[in-house]
């Protein structure tokens, strides 16, 4: 499809080639980001609804559009408009430049990491051979946004929370990194498209089975990375009341919020790609159903698998109490990292034996 657009633009004759390539790339980015931002907004709606249902109450169901209630689907829109119009209060004594730059530092990596995420065997903005490494590097940059937000707020609660968040994210990066190394060993490549291709052959050849502990640890580390319950000491709500973004209001606050949810979707999608076979159908190779439309690879399978993980995110938040900060550290360093290291050896042996 993009080749057709490129040809059409070249047909004009007077457009320079660089500009054509640039506009095609811009088009791809817009086609990715527009649904992504919508998804992020509606993930907040889904969270409120799902957690509400788990708490025996309805979530938002009043805010609709044009006078129709439509089950509260206008809620994210109303929230966005509200946050846009709120006054941006910079606390006195805060470093204004850094204070307003920190949300950008949190959001930019969250969005930039999507450049290498494939949605189908040919659907990716940048098919880089080291795409997994790129994603890992970008999620690590996201820590800076939190630290700078906490420091620039010139207030004790954000300061404590920023220190906690920084240490927590860095610790769980290691566990997550080792889990991803297991996937790389199994697939033999850093390229996300090839990782999915390596899982061909039905539900039993997806990587969740041989790499089960890594799968579990990857997802839990992902929850810790995004500062979500039960690892949300950084935005503790009952201890340090909103933690590092307590001094923020209006649009900067919205940007932090969106960055967190974009990260959540990214981690869920990566988990689906790396462990559950991405866009591959679970009915591949199954005698009767595998020949119908159910056996086709499609982006909808990817979305379904991502939704499972997003639902788990919301379920954890509604159910579990919060870990104390030192317990989080203990879990990351003393429990997850040893398990990942041991399982890496097991995976290496499996690869040598030819089972993977």
């Amino acid at each position, binding site marked *: 499809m993009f080749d057709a657009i490129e040809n059409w633009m070249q047909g004009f004759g007077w457009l320079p080639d660089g500009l054509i390539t640039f506009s095609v790339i811009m088009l791809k980015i817009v086609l990715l980001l527009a649904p992504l931002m919508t998804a992020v907004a509606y993930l907040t709606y889904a969270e409120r609804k799902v957690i509400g249902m788990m*708490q*025996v109450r309805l979530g938002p169901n009043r805010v609709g559009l044009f006078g129709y209630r439509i089950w509260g689907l206008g809620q994210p829109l109303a929230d966005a408009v509200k946050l846009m119009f709120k006054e941006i209060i910079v606390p006195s004594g805060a470093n204004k430049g850094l204070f307003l730059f920190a949300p950008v530092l949190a959001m930019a990596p969250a969005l930039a990491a999507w450049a290498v995420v494939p949605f189908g065997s040919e659907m990716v903005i940048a098919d880089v051979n080291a795409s997994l490494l790129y994603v890992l590097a970008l999620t690590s940059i996201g820590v800076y946004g939190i630290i700078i937000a906490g420091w620039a707020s010139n207030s004790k609660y954000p300061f*404590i929370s920023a220190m906690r968040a920084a240490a927590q994210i860095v610790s769980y990066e290691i566990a997550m990194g080792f889990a991803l190394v297991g996937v790389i060993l199994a697939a033999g490549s850093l390229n996300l498209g090839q990782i999915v291709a390596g899982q061909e052959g039905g539900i039993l050849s997806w990587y969740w089975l041989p790499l089960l502990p890594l799968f579990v640890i990857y997802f839990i580390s992902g929850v810790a990375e995004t500062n979500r319950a039960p690892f949300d000491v950084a935005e503790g709500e*009952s*201890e340090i009341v909103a933690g590092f973004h307590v001094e923020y209001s209006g649009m900067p606050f919205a940007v932090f919020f969106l960055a967190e949810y974009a990260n959540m979707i990214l981690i869920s999608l990566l988990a689906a790609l790396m462990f559950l076979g991405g866009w591959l159908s679970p009915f591949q190779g199954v005698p009767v159903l595998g020949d119908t439309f159910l056996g086709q690879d499609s982006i909808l399978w990817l979305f379904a698998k991502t939704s499972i993980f997003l639902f788990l995110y919301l379920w954890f938040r509604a159910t*579990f109490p919060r*870990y104390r900060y030192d317990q989080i550290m203990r879990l990351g360093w003393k429990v997850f990292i040893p398990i990942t290291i041991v399982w890496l050896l097991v995976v290496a042996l499996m690869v040598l034996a030819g089972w993977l």
Partner: protein
Amino acid sequence: MAEIRNFTLNFGPQHPAAHGVLRLILEMDGEMIVRADPHIGLLHRGTEKLAETKHYVQSLPYMDRLDYVSMMCNEHAYVMAAEKLLQLEVPIRAQYIRVMFDEITRILNHLLWIGAHALDVGAMTMFIYAFREREDLMDCYEAVSGARLHAAYYRPGGVYRDLPDTMPRFEGESKWHSADEIQALNGNRDGSLLDFIEDFTNRFPGYVDEYETLLTDNRIWKQRLVDVGVMSPERALQMGLTGPMLRGSGIEWDLRKKQPYEVYDRLDFDIPVGTNGDSYDRYLVRMEEMRQSNRIIKQCIEWLRHNPGPVMAENHKVTPPSRLQMKEDMEALIHHFKLASEGFMVPEGEAYAAVEHPKGEFGIYFLSDGANKPYRMKIRAPGFAHLAAMDEMVRGHMLADVVTVIGTQDIVFGEIDR
């Protein structure tokens, strides 16, 4: 050389986990608490002084608002102290009603406690579930007194009126609720109040099982609560802790068994006692207390069904006569007039009465000089002693544990500040 001071954090009055208005100045060394300094008085309303200017029945509603999550127990202590001064005998049916509502109040308090404690520690859902059960109990309060929360139901001499024969029902079929839905909601409201409470006691153990499933064996909950806020038994006695704080440390002291009042000596129930004195033991003690309260309520319902009778003492110098009598009989009219204008006169003397409040030992001390108003009323609030022990319980722990300790002490500022 500059003086190095510890990092102080103002766990300020406006804080979601400060359970009211607690200003806690924490001196911290990194994440460890070196010293915790509670500043109270932000909710002081002058209850004891106000009681000196109002007669005994007029100050009764103030008692509801002291520990505003367990209303009728506060009233109970007040009313028992007044009856001690007056040497007044309360009819047996009134005693059973009082005990039943005390236990309902205990369940109310513990439900709010578990909801708030779990919310502070991070499990938001418990809060909603606990409040769902509280709704039913507040409907009992409303049926009997008219107010869901602050029922001024107990009076010196008994209770205000007998249990009603009908419960208020849901009505109002609208486009969001069909008639069938409303009928289903009204399912347990077809009989009298006792039928409604009995239906509640049948459902309640199932709900407590739900809460226990969610929290008791949850490893995160255990990690947050075990070994946090440990009080040794000797220290607990020295600091004046009572109620579940004391029983969690292993000391079997419960006023309902040791100094029985009303009809507790006729009822069959157990007292849960902890072993380690940490927050987890206190959590288990309070969960079991909820089940035992359920048991007591069942026995009271049985007795109340089979034994009708008066619910107010017949001494009309103290308790008002019925409106019918007042309109027909001269003495009743005079009694009504005197009681409504200046209240009853209380002989000189002093009296202290304490009840086993859900938080501990709640006591009221009266000093009377023969007038219709007390000369001095002193409130012994259990939360006051518990908050004083906060410094000791929190030292050496981390910031997150402060929130756990505040929750396990079941602090409610109404009674601390009065």
